[in-house]
C-alpha cells in the first residue's frame, strides 16, 4: 500500500467514525421512538446527492473529548432544495447533547456568514441542550464567547428558518427567535433554559409543556408558526415556506406558471361571505377562493386568529394576504393580531412580496385587557410598519371597516389601490355602537329612537360614498375580486424598481 493509499484509508476511517455520531445504541433508541437522526433529517431536507458538509472532522477543542465529539455535535453544510441552494445546521443530540461549544459555534458562524455572502437561506434544525460545560465555564470560558459582533444582527439579506425538533435551549433558541418561519415537533421544548435548570433556579417544579411546549408557542406567544407530529412533517413545512421566498434579498420571489384564468369561477365568494354584517365566516375560505388553486400557506394559524396572514400565489406570482377573520372575536383586531400582521409585513417588505389586505372588522378590540397588553403601541407599530412597507399594497373593504382600523388595513392612501365591495360599510365606528356613544340611546332603552338615529348615522357609509371622493378607486361585485387584484398587481408592479422594495423593515425585530 502506498503512502497516499494509507492516508486515504485513514481519512475514510475518520469519516466513517463521524457518520456513527453518538453510537449505535443512541441512534437505535431514536429510531424506535420514530425520530430521525441529524443526518437522516438532512437526507429528507435536501435534494438527493446535493449535501456538501463543512466541518465534518471538527471536534471539541479539548483533546480528551475529541473521540467523543464527531462533527462536534452540529452537522453543518450546504445543499439544494428543489434545485435551489441552502445552508443548514442539524443538531446531533446523540453527541454531547448537541451542546454549543467553542468549535461548533465557529462552524455555525462560518456557515451563516457564507450563506449571507452567497445568498442562500439559513436553516436551523434544533435539538440541543444549550451551552456545553466545561467550554463555557469560568471567566475564560464565558469570555471566549461572543467573538462575532454581528452574530445576532438580522438584516434579512437571506431567509432564516428554524425547526425545534427536541429540546431547544441557548443558541438554538436564540437563532429561532431571529427566524422568519418556525416549526416545532410536538413534545419539543423551546425556552431560555431547560425545565430542570429553571426548576432549580426558581425552586419550583416546572413542566416542559408549560415552560416551552407547542401549545404555548403556537397559541399564546406566537413564536412558532406550526406544531407537527413528526420530523418529516416539520422538514416538509420548511420546504413549503421556502418555495415562496427568494433565496436572498437581491432576487424576486420565485414565480410559477399561472393557472388558466378561463377556468376560474368566483361565484363561491358570495356563498362564503354573508351579506348580513353580524354573521361570521372564515376568511381563510375567501382567501382560497381568490388565490391560485392550492397556493395558500397560512402563517401562525393558531395565534392572533382575529387576523389571517398567508403566503399565496396570484397569477403564479407570490402575494402576501393580510385579512381580518370575523370567525374569531368577530374580526376585531387585538394586540396579538396586530403583532402577527406586523411580523408578516416585515417578511413581505424584506423579500419583495406584494401585499393584499382584505378588511372586514368592527375595529380594534377595546377593553382593559387590551390596554394592559399595550394595544395602542401595537396598533401604531402595525401602522408604522404599513406606511414604511414599500412593496405594492392593495386593499379591499369587503364588509365593515371602521375608525383607525380602516387606516391600518390600508384604507385611503395607506395602500396603492383600494376597492370596496358593494357590501362595504365604512365609518368612524359601528353604527349600532355609535348611536349609544353619540346620543346615549340603546336598542333596549328606546327601540324606535335607536333605529331612527342609527339610520341617520348610517347614511353615507357605503362603497359608493367612499368611491365618490375617490378614497376607494373601485367598487366591486365580490365575484370580480380576483380579476381586479390580478389587474392591479400588474399595474403596481414597481417597474422602475424592477419589483424590489426599499426594505425599510428588513431589520425590524418580530418577536416584540
Amino acid at each position, binding site marked *: 500500500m502506498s503512502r497516499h493509499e494509507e492516508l486515504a484509508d485513514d481519512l475514510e476511517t475518520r469519516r466513517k467514525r463521524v457518520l456513527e455520531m453518538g453510537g449505535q445504541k443512541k441512534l437505535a433508541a431514536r429510531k424506535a421512538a420514530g425520530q430521525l437522526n441529524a443526518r437522516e433529517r438532512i437526507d429528507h431536507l435536501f435534494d438527493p446527492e446535493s449535501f456538501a458538509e463543512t466541518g465534518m472532522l471538527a471536534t471539541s477543542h479539548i483533546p480528551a473529548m475529541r473521540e467523543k465529539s464527531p462533527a462536534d455535535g452540529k452537522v453543518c453544510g450546504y445543499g439544494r432544495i428543489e434545485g435551489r441552494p441552502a445552508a443548514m445546521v442539524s443538531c446531533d443530540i446523540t453527541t454531547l447533547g448537541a451542546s454549543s461549544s467553542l468549535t461548533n459555534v465557529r462552524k455555525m458562524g462560518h456557515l451563516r456568514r457564507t450563506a449571507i455572502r452567497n445568498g442562500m437561506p439559513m436553516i436551523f434544525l434544533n435539538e440541543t441542550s444549550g451551552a456545553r460545560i466545561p467550554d463555557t465555564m469560568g471567566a475564560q470560558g464565558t469570555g471566549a464567547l461572543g467573538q462575532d459582533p454581528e452574530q445576532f444582527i438580522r438584516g434579512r439579506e437571506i431567509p432564516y428558518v428554524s425547526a425545534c425538533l427536541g429540546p431547544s435551549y441557548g443558541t438554538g433558541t436564540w437563532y429561532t427567535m431571529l427566524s422568519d418561519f418556525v416549526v416545532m415537533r410536538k413534545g419539543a421544548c423551546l425556552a431560555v433554559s431547560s425545565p430542570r435548570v429553571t426548576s432549580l433556579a426558581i425552586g419550583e417544579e416546572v413542566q416542559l409543556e408549560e415552560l416551552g411546549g407547542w401549545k404555548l408557542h403556537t397559541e399564546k406567544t406566537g413564536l412558532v408558526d406550526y406544531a407537527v407530529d413528526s420530523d418529516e412533517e416539520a422538514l416538509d413545512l420548511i420546504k413549503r415556506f421556502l418555495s415562496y421566498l427568494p433565496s436572498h434579498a437581491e432576487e424576486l420571489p420565485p414565480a410559477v406558471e399561472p393557472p388558466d384564468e378561463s377556468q376560474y369561477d368566483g361565484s363561491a365568494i358570495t356563498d362564503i361571505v354573508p351579506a348580513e354584517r353580524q354573521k*361570521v365566516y372564515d376568511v381563510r375560505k375567501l382567501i382560497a377562493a381568490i388565490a391560485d388553486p392550492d397556493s395558500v400557506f397560512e402563517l401562525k394559524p393558531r395565534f392572533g386568529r382575529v387576523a389571517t396572514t398567508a403566503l399565496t400565489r396570484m397569477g403564479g406570482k407570490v402575494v402576501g394576504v393580510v385579512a381580518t377573520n*370575523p370567525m374569531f*372575536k*368577530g374580526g376585531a383586531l387585538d394586540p396579538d393580531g396586530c403583532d402577527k400582521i406586523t411580523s408578516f409585513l416585515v417578511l413581505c417588505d424584506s423579500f419583495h412580496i406584494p401585499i393584499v389586505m382584505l378588511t372586514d372588522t368592527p375595529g380594534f378590540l377595546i*377593553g382593559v385587557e387590551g390596554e394592559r397588553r399595550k394595544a395602542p403601541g401595537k396598533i401604531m407599530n402595525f401602522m408604522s410598519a404599513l406606511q414604511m412597507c414599500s412593496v405594492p399594497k392593495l386593499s379591499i373593504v369587503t364588509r365593515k371597516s371602521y375608525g383607525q382600523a380602516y387606516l391600518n388595513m390600508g384604507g385611503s392612501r395607506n395602500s396603492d389601490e383600494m376597492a370596496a365591495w358593494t357590501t362595504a360599510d365604512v365609518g368612524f365606528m359601528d353604527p349600532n*355602537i355609535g348611536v349609544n356613544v353619540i346620543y346615549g340611546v340603546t336598542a333596549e332603552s328606546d327601540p324606535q329612537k335607536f333605529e331612527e338615529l342609527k339610520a341617520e348615522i348610517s347614511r353615507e357609509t357605503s362603497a359608493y360614498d367612499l368611491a365618490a371622493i375617490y378614497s376607494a378607486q373601485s367598487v366591486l361585485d365580490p365575484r370580480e375580486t380576483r380579476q381586479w387584484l390580478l389587474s392591479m398587481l400588474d399595474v403596481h408592479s414597481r417597474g422602475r424598481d424592477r419589483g424590489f422594495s426599499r426594505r425599510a423593515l428588513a431589520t425590524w425585530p418580530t418577536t416584540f
Partner: protein
Amino acid sequence: MAEEKICSEITGTVWKIEMGVGDSVEEDDVIMILESMKMEIPVLAPCAGTLKEFLVDEGSAIAEDQVIAIVDT
C-alpha cells in the same frame, strides 16, 4: 379521560347554546354563539370529545378567558 376547558375568547354575552350536555363534538364544531362587538361570534370545540358541562346560560354576561364549558376528551 382528560378534561379540556373551553374559555371565551372575548367579553360579551351568550346568545345561543347550540349543543347539549352529553353531545359528542369534533374539533371546530360550533358549541355556542356569543354576541360581542355587535357580531355573532361562534365558540368552537378545541378538540374532539363529549360535552361534559356548561358553566353559563343563554343571556349570561361573560368575560374574556372565562371558562364557559368543559369537554371530556
